[in-house]
C-alpha cells in the first residue's frame, strides 16, 4: 500500500502548477477566493485559456480533443486548479452534454457541437428539473409532439443554472405520453434563440441571479436535434447524471476554502480561541478522511473498477464538509458578515471594501452553498442509492 502519488504523477502536478502560476488571471482567482460573483466573461476567459493549452475537455476521449488523462491526473488537475483559485468549470457543456453526445450522438452532432463547446461558441444550460419534477425527475411533463421533421415542445423547466448566459439548452421532454414514466422521454438539443422560448430569472436567497425558469411555448425543434433514439432519453439522462456525480466531492475546492478560512481566522485574530480552533481542526480532519476515501475510489477506478455507488458517499460527505467550512467562515467574520454589500460582490467592483476584502462574500456564499446538498441528486436521494446499490436493502 502506498498513499503517495507516483513520480510521474508528481511531475504532472508540477506541470499543472506551473501552468496555473503563469496563466490563471489574478483578478479571477481573487474573486473566487473571496467568494464574489463571476461574470460571464470571467468564465469565458478562463475557458479559452484552458482550451488553448488543450486542457479544457479533460474528460473527453483524445480523438475529440480530450486529454487522455487518467482519473488520478484529473483529480490532481482539479485539486490544483482549486488551490490556485481557478473558477469551477461550468460543466453543462463540456462535462455534461458533451459526454452524452460522444456516447449517444450522431456523427453530424459530434462534428457540429463538440468543436463549438471547445472554442466557446456555445454556452449550454440544462433543461432537466421542472416545477413538478425534482428528485422524481422522470415525472417530468414538458411535452414534445412530433410534427413532420420537428418536435413541438411545450412546458416549463426550472432551476436552470446560468440560463441567462446560454445559447443552447439540452432538455428531457416527454415524447410518448402513453409509455411508463421512464420510457417515453427523449433527449433534445435546443437553440435558445428558437421562437417560443422565454427565460425568467429566479433570485436566490443570497440576492444572486444564478438560476432561471425557462418556458417553452410551441417551440419547434428539428428532429435532427434528437440525441440517441426517440423515447430512450432516460438512458442519456442517467449516463449524464453519473458524470455529474463524479468529482462532486470537490475535495480541491474544500481544501482551498479551508486554507482561506484559516487565513481569515488568523487575520481576525481568532485562532487563539480554542473553541474555534477545535472546530477548524475537526473540519480539517474530516476533510482528510474524505480525501483519502476519494483517493481509494480513484485508485480502484484506475485499476479498472467502476466508481459505483461509492461516489454517492463522496457526494454526501463532500457537500456537507464544504457547507461546514462556509458556515465557519461566516462565523469567523462575526458582525461584519451582516452588511449586504451587493456592489462589493460584483465582479466589476474596484473600490475600497467597507470592512475587509474577505468580509463581503462569506454570508452570501454560505447561503448559496446550501444548494450543494440539493442538486445533482439530493443527499437523501444519494442515501437511497446507497441503500439500494451497496446495502441491497
Amino acid at each position, binding site marked *: 500500500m502506498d498513499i503517495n502519488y507516483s513520480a510521474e504523477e508528481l511531475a504532472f502536478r508540477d506541470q499543472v502548477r506551473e501552468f496555473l502560476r503563469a496563466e490563471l488571471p489574478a483578478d479571477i482567482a481573487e474573486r473566487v477566493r473571496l467568494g464574489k460573483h463571476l461574470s460571464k466573461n470571467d468564465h469565458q476567459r478562463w475557458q479559452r485559456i484552458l482550451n488553448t493549452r488543450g486542457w479544457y475537455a479533460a474528460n473527453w476521449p483524445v480523438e475529440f480533443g480530450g486529454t487522455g488523462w487518467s482519473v488520478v491526473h484529473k483529480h490532481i488537475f482539479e485539486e490544483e486548479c482549486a488551490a490556485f483559485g481557478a473558477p469551477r468549470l461550468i460543466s453543462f457543456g463540456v462535462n455534461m452534454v458533451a459526454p452524452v453526445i460522444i456516447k449517444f450522438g450522431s456523427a453530424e452532432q459530434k462534428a457540429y457541437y463538440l468543436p463549438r463547446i471547445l472554442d466557446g461558441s456555445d454556452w449550454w444550460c440544462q433543461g432537466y428539473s421542472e416545477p413538478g419534477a425534482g428528485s422524481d425527475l422522470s415525472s417530468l411533463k414538458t411535452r414534445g409532439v412530433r410534427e413532420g421533421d420537428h418536435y413541438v415542445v411545450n412546458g416549463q423547466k426550472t432551476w436552470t443554472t446560468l440560463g441567462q448566459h446560454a445559447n443552447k439548452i439540452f432538455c428531457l421532454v416527454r415524447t410518448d405520453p402513453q409509455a411508463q414514466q421512464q420510457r417515453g422521454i427523449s433527449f433534445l438539443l435546443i437553440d435558445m434563440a428558437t421562437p417560443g422560448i422565454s427565460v425568467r430569472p429566479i433570485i436566490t436567497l443570497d440576492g444572486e441571479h444564478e438560476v432561471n425558469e425557462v418556458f417553452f411555448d410551441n417551440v419547434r425543434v428539428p428532429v435532427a436535434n434528437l440525441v440517441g433514439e426517440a423515447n430512450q432519453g432516460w438512458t442519456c439522462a442517467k449516463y449524464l447524471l453519473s458524470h455529474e456525480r463524479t468529482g462532486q466531492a470537490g475535495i480541491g475546492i474544500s481544501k482551498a476554502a479551508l486554507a482561506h478560512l484559516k487565513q481569515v481566522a488568523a487575520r481576525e485574530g481568532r485562532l487563539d480561541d*480554542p473553541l474555534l480552533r477545535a472546530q477548524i481542526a475537526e473540519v480539517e480532519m474530516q476533510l482528510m478522511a474524505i480525501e*483519502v476515501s476519494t483517493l481509494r475510489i480513484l*485508485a480502484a477506478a484506475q485499476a479498472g473498477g467502476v466508481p459505483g455507488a461509492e461516489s454517492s458517499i463522496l457526494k454526501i460527505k463532500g457537500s456537507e464538509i464544504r457547507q461546514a467550512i462556509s458556515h465557519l467562515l461566516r462565523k469567523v467574520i462575526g458582525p461584519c458578515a451582516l452588511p449586504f454589500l451587493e456592489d462589493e460582490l460584483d465582479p466589476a467592483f474596484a473600490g475600497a471594501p467597507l470592512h475587509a476584502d474577505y468580509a463581503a462574500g462569506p454570508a452570501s456564499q454560505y447561503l448559496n452553498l446550501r444548494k450543494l446538498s440539493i442538486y445533482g441528486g439530493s443527499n437523501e436521494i444519494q442515501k437511497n442509492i446507497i441503500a439500494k446499490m451497496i446495502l441491497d*436493502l
Partner: protein
Amino acid sequence: MDFKLTEEQQMLQDTVARLVRDSYGFEQREHFYRSEPGFSREFWQQLGELGLCGMPFSEAHGGFGGSGVDNMLIMTELGRGLCLEPYLQSQIHAGGLLQQLGSVEQLERLLPVLISGELQLAVALEERQSHYQLLDVQTRAERVDGGWELSGRKVVVIGGHSAGMLLVSARTRGEARDEQGISLFLVDPQAEGLSRKVYPTIDGPKACDLFLERVLVRDTDLLGEPGQALAALRYQQGRAIAAQCAEAIGSMQEACQLTLDYLKTRQQFGKPIGKFQALQHRMVDMRTELELATSMAILAACVADQADSLERSRRLAAAKFIVTRAARFIAEQAIQLHGGIGMTWEYNLAHHAKRLVMLSHQLGDDDHHLSAYAELLHSA
C-alpha cells in the same frame, strides 16, 4: 498510489481471518472471557506458532519486519472476532517500546521469547490523574545502589494480570508534567513491593491496577537513557493508535454486517424493517462513517512506522479522532436499529458496541486528539 494488498498480505489476512473464525465463535469467546486468564492461552500460543507474534519485529531480531499495514491486517481480524488477547498491548505497544529503547542485552534476552509467544508484555503508563497525558507521571523512581526503587500507582494496565514483564513509566527527576525526567522500566510482576488489583474491563479484556511500593528494579532493566523516555512513549503510542484504529475497523465492519443482516431479517408491519426509509438512512450513515474511518485507519497504518514528524503526529491524531467518533456512532446506531435484542448480553452485537465505545478510553479519546490536532494547527 496503491491501496492493494500484496499476495503475502492477502495470505496473511486469510490466515488470521480463518484462525479467528475457527477459534473465536461467540460461545468460545464467552468461555475465554470467564476463564482465569480472561483470554485463550491456546489461541495466543497459536499466534506464536504461526509467526504472528513476531510480525511487528525487525528481521534482524528474528521477527518478520511487518509494516504498519501488516499490523493493520492482523488487528482488523482480531477486532472482527473481538479477541481478548493483549496482542496490541504486548506485541505492538510494549514490543515497539522494547525494540526502540532496549539495549542489545535486553533485546537478546526478551525478543526471542516475545516473538515465540512465550512472553507476554504489558504497558503501564496511565495514572489516576494523567488522563492520556504521557508526561503526567507521578510514579517516582529513586536512585539506589545498583538500581532504582519505584513507588506509585498505575491504572488500567490491559493484560497486566497475565504479563510476564511490565513496562512501567516513572519519573527519575523533575515535577509532574515535565517533559524531561520520565524513564521506562522493565518490572517483574512478582517483584517484592508490587501488588496488583485485577478486574475485567467493561468491554471484555482483563486489566489491573499496579501498586508499587519501593519496588527494586536493577539497572539492567532500565530501558534507554534515564529521563529520556517521553519521545519513545509518544512515538510508540502512535503505532498503538494505528493498530487500535484497525482493530476498531474490524469490529465496526462486523457491527455493520450484523445490523444489515438484522434489517433484512426482522419483520414488523408485515415487511423487513430494512424497507423503512428512516432505518435505511441510518444504516447508510453507518456505512458512510465506516468508509471514512477505514480510510483513516489505512492512512494511520501507512504513517505509523514512518520517522517521527509533525505530519505523522497530525495524521495519527486525526485517525484516532475520526475512528473514535465513527466507532461510537456505529455502536449507538447498531443498538438502536436492533432494538431490545441489541441490549442483550447473549447477542454478539452488544459486545461489539461495548468495545467500540470503550476503545476511546485507551490511548486518548476524541477530545484529547481534537485538542492535540488543534494545537498543531498553529505550527502547520
